[in-house]
């Protein structure tokens, strides 16, 4: 249960072959390429890989061309974009709250967005398509904001997660009430949507995402360095001139802007924001937040693209929602990664801890990569003693603020 954060030296000594420096890009590219080819060529009609280029060039003159250019390519692009957004948002949330389990699903962000989209569908309000992302954003901001405000910013991670679970459950109950009210046809639609599905999405859906990405991408670039400072803990971050609470709210806002439009188009594709950051960390435990952010986006894209292949083909002719697959595969895999990364850290923590209060693992993320944080850490550790013995800084900081 912790951010895989062993010091660089500790990792290098027993780094398995999979964690070699070149492995991450290689694996990501190979997985992405294979699943893209599968996504484009398999299905009915079957377009063999060597005929793909021909089919695309033929365009809408042949059946294969139409299927590939109008259905499969937009679906693939949507999977990549959605996955990248979700992965990046997951990392932003986890880093800003210093909590390896702070994922959109646990904070009520996803269910809020879903509620925002599903409500007009059930209540039979006809809205222009452009309004939908706005509603999703409103719902997501409501869910996430409610969680963070109710839990008190920067409180112990478990308290935040439990509050999030409560908020998510309440929103879920509201959704289920809507579903009970809906008639059978709407119900099928809503249920499929709620599980996150990429079926029958066209270029229109993809183009609807671009404006939001244009807003979110620069914000991500601006916030990435702040994230690596936030990992130090509230006190240290404030000493370095970052207003922790404000930065946390900004991170939440960015995550909402990334998640909500994706949710509006393809539903809450669950737990991608959990798996992708942990993959990025597992492959490169020594890097800083900035590099993790990039890799997390890449892995998010890979995860959704890979999961979409069985979603489309496993039970053909019935399509299964991709979100069910990501939930089924993502949660166990993410937990396994988290624990395998946490084990090395736990060993160090038990070696170092003497005081009665051991921090919940993962509360306290120790910087290992970026230059400035490292210096600050070293200064700090001189006066504070072993890392594991220090209590989590979160609660103290908020109590001071009050």
């Amino acid at each position, binding site marked *: *249960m912790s951010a895989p954060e062993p010091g660089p030296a500790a990792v290098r000594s027993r780094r398995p072959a999979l964690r070699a420096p070149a492995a991450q890009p290689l694996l990501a590219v190979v997985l992405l390429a294979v699943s893209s080819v599968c996504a484009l060529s398999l299905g009915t009609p079957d377009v063999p890989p060597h005929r793909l280029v021909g089919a695309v060039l033929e365009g809408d003159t042949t059946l294969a061309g139409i299927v590939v250019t109008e259905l499969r390519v937009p679906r693939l692009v949507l999977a990549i974009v959605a996955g990248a957004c979700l992965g990046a948002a997951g990392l932003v949330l986890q880093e800003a709250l210093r909590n390896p389990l702070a994922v959109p699903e646990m904070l009520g962000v996803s269910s809020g967005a879903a509620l925002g989209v599903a409500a007009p569908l059930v209540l039979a309000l006809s809205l222009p398509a452009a309004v939908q992302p706005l509603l999703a954003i409103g719902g997501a901001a409501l869910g996430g904001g409610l969680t963070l405000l109710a*839990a008190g910013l920067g409180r112990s991670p478990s*308290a935040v997660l*439990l509050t999030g679970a409560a908020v998510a459950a*309440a929103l879920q*109950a*509201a959704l289920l*009430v809507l579903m009970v009210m809906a008639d059978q046809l709407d119900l099928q639609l809503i*249920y499929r949507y709620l599980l996150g599905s990429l079926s029958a999405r066209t270029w229109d859906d993809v183009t609807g995402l671009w404006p939001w990405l244009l807003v979110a991408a620069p914000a991500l670039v601006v916030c990435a360095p702040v994230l690596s400072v936030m990992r130090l803990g509230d006190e240290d971050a404030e000493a370095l001139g970052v207003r922790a609470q404000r930065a946390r709210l900004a991170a939440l806002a960015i995550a909402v802007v990334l998640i909500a439009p994706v949710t509006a188009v393809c539903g809450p594709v669950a737990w991608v924001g959990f798996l992708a950051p942990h993959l990025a960390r597992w492959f490169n435990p020594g890097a800083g937040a900035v590099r993790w952010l990039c890799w997390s986006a890449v892995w998010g894209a890979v995860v959704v693209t890979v999961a979409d292949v069985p979603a489309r083909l496993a039970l053909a002719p019935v399509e*299964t929602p991709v979100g069910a697959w990501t939930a089924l595969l993502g949660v166990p895999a993410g937990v396994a990664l988290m624990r395998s990364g946490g084990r090395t850290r736990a060993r160090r923590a038990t070696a170092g801890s003497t005081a009665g209060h051991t921090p919940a693992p993962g509360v306290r993320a120790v910087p290992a990569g970026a230059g400035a944080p490292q210096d600050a850490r070293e200064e700090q550790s001189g006066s504070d003693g072993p890392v594991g013995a220090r209590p989590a800084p979160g609660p103290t900081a908020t109590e001071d603020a009050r």
Partner: protein
Amino acid sequence: MSRRFGALTALAVVCAAVELVAGRGMSPGTVWEVLGGGGDTTERHILLNLRVPRLLVALGAGACLAVAGLVLQSALRNPLAGPEVTGVTPGAVLGAVTATALGLAGWDSPLAVVLAACAGGCAGAALLWLLAGRGRGDPAQTAVQGVLVSAVLGGLTAMVLLVEPGELGSVVQWLVGTTEGRVWEHWHLLWPWALVWGAAAWLLAGPLTLLRCGDDIALTAGLAARRARTLALLCAVALTAGAVAAVGALGFVGLLVPHLAVALFGADLRVSLPGAALVGAVVVCGADAAAQLSSRLLAAGLDSGRLTLPVGALTAGLGAALLLVVVRRTPSRSF
């Protein structure tokens, strides 16, 4: 103590009375008339074959869930353990839905549904046990891992439902937990099961009280802690499965009612287990009555007949609000 029991019983009677008159279609006067032996056939049918079994099922399910929650919290020594957050309820839902989809159990063979729910509940609990493993010390962490387990089980349930979409309409109501349309068959199924396992739980009350004090004290007092815990968990899973099979996944009853019961009746489980059963029955019955009343008001206000508020939505909303208050009010404790 007996005064509190008396007050709660009175409250239960009041809730039951409200529940009987709350529904649409009959005025309170007619209800009184039917109870006195009058009324025409339709009215008699509504009251005796729809409202009374519904009331009884709500009472029974509430009692089951509350007892299961208290047993779980005592056996695991975890104030955040409830059937919902230990993977038991989602597992039971998955088991019941899967059995129905495979044709092993239909709504016409209710015992099979209960058994499937029981197996699913055990599987869910086992999954959490695997996941939590050695790190079972921190209650909040276990709860968070329970949420993860619930996510996986929910994904599986979704898959099953999508393969078998015909069941979707009725099952969605059941996913949120509702007492809508419960008839005598449900009650005949629920009460023997609840009675057997409730009695088992009550027999375990002594060992459970010892377990609450911690394994060391329990071992010193001569209790086989491991065996007692296993039995208690089995009991809790069975009770939850019975309730889930009857009314669906009622949110937060099993998590929060035990706290209320312990606050009212103290930590001696020989007293507080029956107390929890009573409180759970009152809470679910009251919530059901409130849901009935509010859906009646909503239907009158919005002028749409199909609007009904499932009781599970009400308990989930209420429970979430309570949980928020609890989390807020313990600022220094990080659980």
